[in-house]
Every structure is written in structure tokens, then in C-alpha cells.
């Protein structure tokens, strides 16, 4: 059976309510992001044994590991490349990785930073200056993506 103006009630109701965006801050407060939202991984340094499992399973190749031997080494993450899948956490044999739940520190707000490298863990002789130097080198280079883009553009 065909009628017209079936949605009148709904439309009038919305008309009376006024714009939704007016109360957007209040609504955000009422509906916070879930506490187990997905964000970037963080490594607990005491537990990490630098086995390299997280580097091997990472689908986006955003983790890089450099190490001399069992005790000396570091894991770097190219943060914007991480897609928060949590594979590293699932497959870590020592439960050393936990997912950072604080949205303020997450990559959520740093998508535009292409050169965003961070140290996940640095152990033994890599701790301190050496790690900082490595990161600086990486940042100076401008990251993987930027490097390839530059190569493509200069070739033209």
C-alpha cells in the first residue's frame, strides 16, 4: 500500500531537536572511545629477548631490528606505517608487547608525520646515544616512502 509523507513524524522530531553538532562535546563525553581501542604497540624492555618474531610477522614491515648478539640490540618502528593489527602482540613468545591504549599518545594524531620513527626497545650497548643516533639517521633520510618517492620524481 502506497502512502505519502510516511517520514513526517521522524522529520518533525528531528526538526524540534535542533542540530546534532551543537552538543558534540557533550556527546563525546557521554560516548568515550572503548578502553581497548587498537593503537600502536609498546615493548616492555625487561621481557624482550630480541628474538625477532614481531619483525617477522609484521604485515606492513614497519618494525626493524638491529642487534649484535643476544643482549645488545634495538627495535625501531616506523610509526605511520603501523596499521594496529596487533600481530606482534599475538605472536610474541614472551608477552613482551602490549598495545598502548592511551589515544593521546597514539599515532592517531600523527598521520601527517612521515618521518616518524620511534624506538620500541634498546638493550645493552645500544641503549642511550647509539640508539638516538640511529633514529636521527633514519629521520634525516626521511623514511622509506619518502625515499622511494624522491627516487621516482628525480628519475622523471
Amino acid at each position, binding site marked *: *500500500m502506497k*502512502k505519502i509523507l510516511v517520514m513526517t513524524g*521522524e522529520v518533525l522530531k528531528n526538526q524540534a531537536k535542533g542540530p546534532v553538532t551543537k552538543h558534540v562535546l557533550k556527546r563525546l563525553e557521554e560516548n568515550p*572511545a572503548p578502553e581497548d*581501542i*587498537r593503537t600502536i604497540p609498546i615493548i616492555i624492555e625487561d621481557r624482550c629477548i630480541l628474538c625477532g618474531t614481531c619483525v617477522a*610477522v609484521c*604485515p606492513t614491515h614497519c618494525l626493524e631490528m638491529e642487534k649484535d648478539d643476544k643482549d645488545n640490540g634495538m627495535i625501531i618502528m616506523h610509526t605511520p606505517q603501523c596499521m594496529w593489527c596487533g600481530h606482534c602482540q*599475538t605472536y610474541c613468545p614472551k608477552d613482551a608487547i602490549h598495545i598502548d591504549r592511551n589515544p593521546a599518545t597514539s599515532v592517531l594524531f600523527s598521520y601527517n608525520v612521515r618521518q616518524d620513527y620511534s624506538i620500541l626497545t634498546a638493550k645493552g650497548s645500544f641503549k642511550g646515544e647509539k640508539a638516538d643516533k640511529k633514529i636521527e639517521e633514519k629521520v634525516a633520510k626521511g623514511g622509506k616512502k619518502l625515499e622511494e618517492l624522491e627516487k621516482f620524481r628525480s628519475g622523471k
Partner: protein
Amino acid sequence: MVEETFRSRFRTEVDGSDAPPGADYHMFIGPQHPWCEEPAHFIIHLKGERVVEANIRIGFNFRGMEKAMEARTWRQNTMLIPRACGICSAVHQNIYVRVVERLAGIEDQISERARLIRMFSCEAERIHSHMLWYGILAHDAGFDTMLHISWRDREIIMDIVEDLSGNRVNPALMLPGGVKRDIPKEKADRTRPKINDLIKKVEYHKKVFVEEASIRNRLEDVGVLTKDDAKKTTPNGPTGRASGLPFDVRKASPYELYDQLDWNLVYYTEGDILATTLVRLDETLESLRMCNQILDKLETAEGELLARVRPRIPAGEYFGRGEAPRGEDVHYGIANGTDKPERYKIRAPSLGNIDATLKRMDGEYIADMPVVLRSYDPCFSCTNRVMIVNDTTGEKLIIGQDEFAHKAIKAKKYNRPFF
């Protein structure tokens, strides 16, 4: 033998020699067009206001997933495979993990609880995909009120998905061997009233589509695909079910625990756009009721969430199927004993539905074109998922479009046909 009228609509000659004899106007839509958010090139031959024949060209959005999968390990691919499609990511992952489990021979070790959570993820995805679709359909028909209402209510299910998985669109809950996250009791209790609320709202949406004259006149008896035509052009999913082909993989060959739930197969025989809409609306309601059943079952279901799967998958091959929101989704995986797949084939549902949809257009008014083309839920990341190329996809894509732009400009300049 297949008659000439049923030839595939994927055939387009570059020199334009394939235009049907009766046509006097040719309309080109895409690859970039405000109507169609996704890149496909439709070529519509018109006689006056009526469509004589509609053709399509694809290939503007390929990302090389099948080749990329051969270069990655089975474990890494678990997170690559949901990217095959933006909206139906869970069902792709679901089929993938079932293929891997079958190849690894650990099918029996998957607990009931893990299977229920997987099903919940798939059904939630079907709900939000269908709600999105009929919103856009109403928008294409010029009924924007429905778009806003349905998308507003869709936020409820999006919140549920975000609460349970941590992501809004791409839940990525599944792993070979089980699932990543549990649905604890508090979350289930929080979810149930939302689902009951949504059932009422979807029933209201259905009422609008059935009763409101301004939208119903636009959809009824438009783009009719008869059952015989449907059998020849092999549509799948809701497109087929609207034309009286009552096949749904969940019923046809039940996977996970779909045979233990109480649900009805929805199908209509009219074959017009209203029927495809009603199939999806009814399916949304069925899925919502299934979600409630799954939450009830989760209270008593027990078991380990994740069984161990070795990184090396023994040699073998398996053909997995699943029902995506758009239709039948097909994967074929071949393992060779290493930790990387030998070959992995994906056929997403949209590709199979295009022929049937373009068949619908024959003899219709050009004004009905947006509604008809929307009816199969176009998704070109599904359609072109195959090919090469990794990081440089962006560049390549742009160049393809450039070529098109050049051609279009030339065509306009010299006042000649596009090709």
C-alpha cells in the same frame, strides 16, 4: 549455446566499433565521476532516452593482492586479506582462516566460542554494509531523508563493532586457529539493548521503503532481471536472491555454526530494484536476530580462543566459500609446505554481479541508471583486486586516469567519439 544478446558486458573495443547499430548517443561514466565513488568506466549506448546496451571497463584500481600474497607469509597474509575489500573485510578474513585451518588440518580444534565470535563479526558486518547500501540507494533515487536516517542509525552497529573489536570498519578479529579477542559478559550485556533498538529502527526503514510512494515508485518495476536471465548471467548473493535464485552459502553449504542458528533464507522473485532492496532489508533484520542468538549462545559456550597453528602449512589445496554482504565470496588456496602460499586466488562477489546488473539496464530509461547500477552494491576494490605492484600503486593509478583525461580532452576538442 549462448545467444548473442547475452554476451558479456566486459567487452569494449578501443576504437568504438562495438557500439550497437541502433544507438545514437553514447554516455561515458567514470572512472572518476561524482556519482560513482569508485573507479569503473561505464559506457552506455542510448537511443533517445532508452538504454540500448551498457558496457563496462575495469582495471583502474588493481593493487596486486594475489601476487603480494605469494611474497608474504601465511601469518602476514591474515592481515593483508581483509584489505581486499573496504566493507566486507571480516568475511574475507573468515574464509582465509578457514582455508588455512583446513590446510593445516586443525579444523576440529577450533572452539565453539571462537566460531561464535567469528560469526558475530560477519553478521555485524552484513548489517552495517546493508544499512550503508540502502542509504546510498535512497540518495541515488533522490530521497535524501532516508540516507541521513539510515546512516544515523548505522552508527549504532558501528559502535558495537568498535566496542568489540577496537576498529570501526575493519574488525580483523580472526586468526588461523581462532579469534584475537573475546566478547566478555559485560560487553555482551552492553550490546544487547543496542541491537534490540536497531531492530526497531530497521523495521521502520523497511516500512518507509514499502509504504512511501516517492521512493517506491522509483524502485518498483525498474530494471527487472527475470529468473531466466539471472541463470544465464550468474549473479550471486542478494542480486540473485531478488530474482528467485534462493542460494545463500550460509544455507547452501553451511560453514562455522550457521546450521545451528534459527534463521530464514530471504528471497524474492520479482527481480526489480525494490526486490533487491527488500532482500537486503530483510537480511539485515535476520542478521540482527542472529546476533541476538549468538550473544545468548556465548553465555554458555566455552573453549580456548586460539589454537596453535604452525607457521609452515603442509602442502595441499582447498576451495573455500563464504557469504559476503554482496554475495558469494570465493577463495582458492594452494600451500606448498613452506610458510608462504604457492598461489592464492580471490574472487570477490562484485565481479560476478556486474553482467547481471548491466543486463538489467537494457531498455530502461537513462534516468533510472543510477539506481540500477547501484543495485549490486558496486565495490571496485573487490572487482580489480588482482594484479601487480606495491608501493607505487598510487603513481600508476594516477597515470591511468591521466590517459583517460587526455583522451576525453581530445575527444571534446575534435568533437569525435571518446575512443
